[in-house]
């Protein structure tokens, strides 16, 4: 019945959406920020611990939201490991392109995030995929809250 939504709800997404591996508050952290999508009720908080050279050593998140936003948060924590602020910004820009258009030909380092590319066919769900990123960027910029889009 739902064959045509498999692009969106790929097994990876369902797995990460159902049993996120990084859904936790870090015991010790350097930065944290919240994100809110009040139109739909999604909420996320991200915690970051820095390692050497201001690169990200560890990330954790908590979210109340749909499978897409939880999977996006979970995959994000893996993808940003070891990156610095500038690198995260660039990765998010590429990721944004991908979830909006479905592809990102010149993008590097998106392999892990690729399962989310199906979101582009569901314009109203794009926000779900980007919400944890907005919160992460806010945390890295020492803000407490992601600005609403």
């Amino acid at each position, binding site marked *: 019945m739902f064959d045509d939504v498999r692009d969106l709800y790929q097994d990876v997404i369902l797995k990460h959406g159902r049993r996120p591996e990084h859904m936790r508050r870090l015991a010790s952290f350097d930065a944290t920020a919240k994100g809110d999508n009040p139109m*739909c009720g999604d909420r996320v908080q991200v915690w970051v611990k820095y390692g050497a050279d201001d690169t990200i050593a560890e990330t954790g998140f908590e979210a109340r939201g749909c499978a897409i936003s939880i999977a996006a948060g979970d995959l994000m924590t893996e993808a940003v490991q070891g990156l610095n602020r500038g690198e995260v910004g660039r990765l998010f820009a590429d990721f944004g392109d991908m979830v909006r258009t479905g592809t990102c030909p010149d993008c590097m380092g998106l392999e892990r995030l690729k399962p989310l590319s199906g979101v582009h066919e569901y314009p109203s*769900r794009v926000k779900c995929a980007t919400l944890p990123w907005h919160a992460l960027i806010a945390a890295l910029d020492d803000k407490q809250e992601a600005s609403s889009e």
Partner: protein
Amino acid sequence: MNDMSRHFDVDTIRRQFPILDQKVHGKDLVFLDSAASAQKPRAVIDAMVHAMETQYANVHRGLHWMSERTTDAYEAARDAVQGLLNAADRSEIVFTGNSTAAINLLAHSYGRAILRPGQAVLISAMEHHANIVPWQMLRDATGIELRVADITDAGELDFADFEARLADGRVGLVAITHMSNVLGTYTPVERIVRTAHAHGARVMLDGSQAVVHRTVDVQALDCDFYVFTGHKLYGPTGIGVLYGKRELLDAMPPFMGGGDMIASVSFERSTWAPVPHKFEAGTPAIIEGIGLKAAVDWVRGIGFDAIAAHEATLTEHALARLANVEGVSVVGRAQDRGGVVSFTLDQAHAHDVATLLDRQGIAVRAGQHCAEPLMRRLGLDSTARASFGIYTTTQEIDFLADTLVRVSEFFK
């Protein structure tokens, strides 16, 4: 099958809604989002087209034939709404852009000019943002207090709490929904009005949902104000209604200034036209008024008895079917309720549910339904909501329930 529903043939009704033939993702459209906005019957579309093709000009100010005829057609909408609400006088019907604009008009005009610092406005915990934010803005601008009557866990007005908040006599205005857009709950409006009046408070009822489903008689209710919005009543967007008792409207200052609402203008001082025009600044939503009249006539032609019976059947059916879908919890179990059913699914978030349903052609809403405080009160982030219209069938509800079983399997 009772008497009503024998006369009510949903297939005949459906044929009057061109959009219901549409396919969505290759599937038949199953439109279960009428509480957000209803579809438009041919009668409404035709009335608007007829105006634009054969009889259109600006109203109220013209001496020529087109303007006179258009004025007649537009003002006939006021008569139609007067009839719909059984208002005592046609001048008690003020047209606005939607329910939200009607409540804002009231909050600005009645709120700032008639209510006094020290007085309070009393709303409930199950209001739509449209009936929260204007009062909040009034509070923040004037120091008028905003009180909130709680609801029970069943999703009904907690009447004891409501009455307690009236007790000190400082509530000047009760502004409360006639039917919740999330829970489907009807509020006990007769009792609300009686109790509020006994405590010296005026009452505004937000009829955005209720007016679509039952007969509303503002004189029998004795409410002071009543608001609704055209697009939920199978009418056009861009038009809403504020009903107010004549003596109250007379005492209120205008909200917006401009053409059509004045008696005379000089730079020193202007005077206002009598109600309802005092509150209708600028060129009105003429074509929309004409469409709204068609909607009101059409709905009344079917009759609220038949509509209410049909929707009661649908709602019972939906509650029964959803109760049998594993993992589905219906939110709210009010005794007196209408065709709006919010639910959650254990295995999946409301958004995921809505997306999967959509791929089968089923349109439901998911989220907070412009009622964030209610969601918080219920301890929920979001729900999915199926809401029924005059054109909804039990088969569609069956399809919803069957599909939900598959959705919950998908996410298991």
